């Protein structure tokens, strides 16, 4: 993993405190420079979340020293890091700051870079027409300059992607060729990611134009550049490129296997998730897994696209780029959805689901003697999904999938699970393996529900702030089902006293959940769950404060499970 070969927490914290301490001007410049270099390194190894505070501190320090050159670089770094975490509004904010400094200094090269960065941020949200305008501005600014110019190289490469996305293949190829012409070995060395993206664009464009031979050549280029780089971002881009080529040449099963791994990695680098999901959707569709493609589309449009685009739209109008819509993207998603839905078959319970349920009961029995932890979490998850406004049948599926969330516990030595004391680091690491083990057990199933169960098993210990495991998967980039399950799972464990947890009353457990909102859990889900438990238990006339909540809690869960002819 990249964790070993990139700097740990120590240097980051040390640099931040140095930046905050008063320093002589000379020394300060040095610290800022090394901070920005460290940010760049962290960005390369997909740890933007750790790097952002450092970049912000560097920006503040440069402002104090009113050093335009460093303000510019620090702001650009902040913007790039925010965009990488899919905080598009924040990113545009920073880039606009950099743009203003560039304008004041009348530095066309830097202004051009800023426009390029703004375009990149918009590209992450999928608003390609708006992004294209930014890239065009960037190009116009450096048009009078001769010789290889980095901004021209980057912007025309990016513009090529916009043209591809907007369906204008010939114009896209022309732009990409221009970028290729502009690229020097130095650029390639300095920014392998941009180089990979450029070749990726050429692969896609050539595939769209039906020239497989040319595309294949560029795939080779992409692989060659990728081999020289350890950055996860580059590796993701390489794999997506290879997968799209495999798709085009009819090997969709190979592509799917590749994409499965890419997707897991892309969740740690949110800015690449959009592209990955788009590719996964195409792969699933061509492999005939309509339901799964639809699930991905849902994730793409609801959890990533809508969030980012809405906020970006508001903001970019303020920044003076008036644009009615990323409507084209909405429409495209709608068309995709309609096409997929028309191909969808009615589904029933997955084959062997009963057996899986039994296995899950057996797995859970090693830490909860009733063995019903999974069932309870399933019922709570379904209720929470409904309360969040998920359509009923989807909520049913989430509930059933969540029942299997701890199935991976089967692979954990019983001695560790049975102990009631808190675990040491080595034991914790072993227990943490249950997430991946569960995902492995549920792999490669055609039924969308088991597929969802696999994601829930893998990500139900991911924290909202990225501090859980798998590490760095955070926020809305955790699959919805897993976020729901995480709340239900923690609540059940607290009320029933599973593992080293002491048993709490239902009210205490709710308070504990509230404390974890925004760090461990999706805050929206916690408040919704809180309201749900309170209203349901009021409906049943329960006292949440009562000493042992166990009996009431069982009753609550039973009520949620009871079939009264409602969903």
């Amino acid at each position, binding site marked *: 993993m990249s964790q070993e070969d990139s700097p740990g927490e120590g240097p980051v914290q040390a640099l931040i405190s140095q930046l905050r301490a008063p320093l002589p001007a000379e020394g300060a410049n040095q610290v800022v420079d090394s901070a920005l270099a460290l940010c760049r390194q962290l960005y390369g190894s997909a740890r933007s979340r750790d790097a952002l505070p450092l970049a912000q501190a560097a920006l503040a320090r440069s402002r104090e020293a009113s050093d335009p050159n460093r303000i510019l670089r620090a702001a650009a770094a902040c913007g790039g890091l925010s965009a990488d975490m899919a905080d598009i509004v924040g990113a545009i904010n920073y880039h606009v700051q950099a743009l203003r400094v560039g304008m004041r200094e009348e530095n066309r090269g830097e202004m051009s870079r800023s426009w390029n960065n703004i375009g990149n941020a918009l590209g992450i949200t999928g608003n390609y027409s708006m992004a294209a305008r930014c890239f065009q501005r960037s190009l116009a600014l450096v048009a009078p300059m001769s010789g290889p110019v980095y901004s021209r190289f980057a912007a025309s490469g990016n513009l090529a992607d916009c043209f591809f996305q907007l369906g204008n293949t010939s114009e896209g190829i022309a732009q990409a060729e221009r970028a290729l012409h502009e690229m020097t070995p130095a650029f390639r060395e300095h920014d392998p990611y941009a180089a990979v993206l450029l070749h990726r664009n050429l692969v896609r464009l050539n595939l769209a134009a039906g020239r497989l031979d040319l595309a294949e050549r560029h795939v080779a280029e992409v692989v060659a550049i990728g081999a020289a780089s350890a950055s996860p971002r580059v590796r993701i881009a390489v794999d997506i490129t290879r997968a799209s080529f495999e798709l085009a040449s009819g090997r969709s099963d190979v592509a799917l296997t590749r994409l499965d791994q890419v997707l897991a990695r892309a969740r740690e680098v949110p800015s690449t998730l959009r592209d990955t999901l788009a590719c996964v959707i195409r792969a699933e569709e061509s492999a005939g897994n309509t339901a799964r493609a639809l699930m991905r589309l849902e994730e793409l449009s609801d959890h990533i696209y809508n969030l980012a685009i809405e906020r970006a739209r508001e903001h970019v109008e303020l920044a003076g780029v008036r644009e009615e819509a990323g409507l084209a993207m909405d429409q495209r998603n709608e068309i995709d959805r309609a096409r997929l*839905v028309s191909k969808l*078959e009615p*589904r029933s319970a997955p084959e062997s689901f009963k057996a899986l349920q039994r296995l899950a009961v057996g797995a859970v029995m090693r830490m909860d003697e009733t063995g019903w932890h999974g069932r309870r979490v399933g019922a709570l998850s379904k209720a929470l999904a409904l309360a969040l406004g998920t359509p009923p049948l989807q909520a*049913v599926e989430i509930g059933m999938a969540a029942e299997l969330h701890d199935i991976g516990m089967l692979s954990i030595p019983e001695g560790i699970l049975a102990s009631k004391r808190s675990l040491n680091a080595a034991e914790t690491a072993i227990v943490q393996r249950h997430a991946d083990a569960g995902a492995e057990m549920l792999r490669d199933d055609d039924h969308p529900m088991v597929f969802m169960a696999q994601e829930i098993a893998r990500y139900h210990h991911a924290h909202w702030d990225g501090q859980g495991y798998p590490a760095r998967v955070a926020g809305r980039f955790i699959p919805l089902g897993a976020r729901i399950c995480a709340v239900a799972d923690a609540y059940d464990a607290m009320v029933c006293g599973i593992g080293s947890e002491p048993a709490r009353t239902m009210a205490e457990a709710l308070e504990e959940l509230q404390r974890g909102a925004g760090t461990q859990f999706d805050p929206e889900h916690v408040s919704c769950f809180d309201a749900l438990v309170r209203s349901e238990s009021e409906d049943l*006339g329960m006292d949440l404060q009562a000493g042992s909540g166990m009996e009431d809690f069982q009753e609550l869960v039973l009520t949620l499970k009871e079939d009264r*002819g409602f969903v």
Partner: protein
Amino acid sequence: MKDAMIDAKNQRMLELLAVGSTSRVIAKQMGYQEGTMRVYLHNLYRRIGVANKTEAVVWYLNREKSRDDLKAEKSAQRPTTGDVFGDMALEEDLFATLGVMSQFTGPYGRVWEVAQRLEGTAMDEKMSERRGRARLLWRALLKGDWAYGKRIYDADMGGAISLDAPSDAVLLAALLVAGGFSLAGDRLASQLTDKRKAGRGVTTREATLMRLARDAFQAQDAQAAAALQKFAGEKSSAAVIKQAAMVLAFHAFKARSEDARARQCANAMWAEAESARKHLEAMGERPLGGEAAFAAPAKAVTREKATAGAR
């Protein structure tokens, strides 16, 4: 108007006469001695000014017919608005207006059916019986067929229903109260155990629904119907309770001739049905069917193959 003299008891007697029941059967159905029943019947004849059973039936049928005419007249007077669904709901009833879409509403509806299949629960006889019963109650509620509720209650289903399926009993109680059978409604409601005391019973929300329905129809309170509508809009309630409140609010507003608000409720029901249908479609279901003709040949081929293989 003559109708004022006909209370619920007399109405029931006339209904039973019209289907050809003898006075003994009527007595048994209504829980009186046969002699008492005869006295009541004669009082009824005198009141409506007829000489015997046959004339009473003719009188009753004429009156029913003119009621239909009255209804048609009334709806002709009602101005049509652009709200096609609301207009028709006021003219006919919710069941007729929703048509096949009514399947996507109420308890044990289509969504429930698919959910059962997703969960892999096999539909046994007992469950399908329970489902059939609940669906009929729901249909009566949409139609405003109050007499159906009373018939179910009279057939001594009341006792069994409140033990077996409290949620259905809630619908039945609402149906009774809405039809003016408040005594029966109250009796049924009092039979329903509180869920917090026994495992099977009604929840606080269901109790609230019954109370609101009682207020809206019995007290004829302008506020009460609005309270029902508000209750239907609450986010936390289960879909079925929400929908039941919506339907009851529709009937209450309609009875009070508050057409605009009745239309609101009717349209809200349509929206519920439509969103359920869309949801089913998004899950790959074909909720309105119509595909069998295409699916059949493929199936036939596989069956042939299977038999060939078996041989």
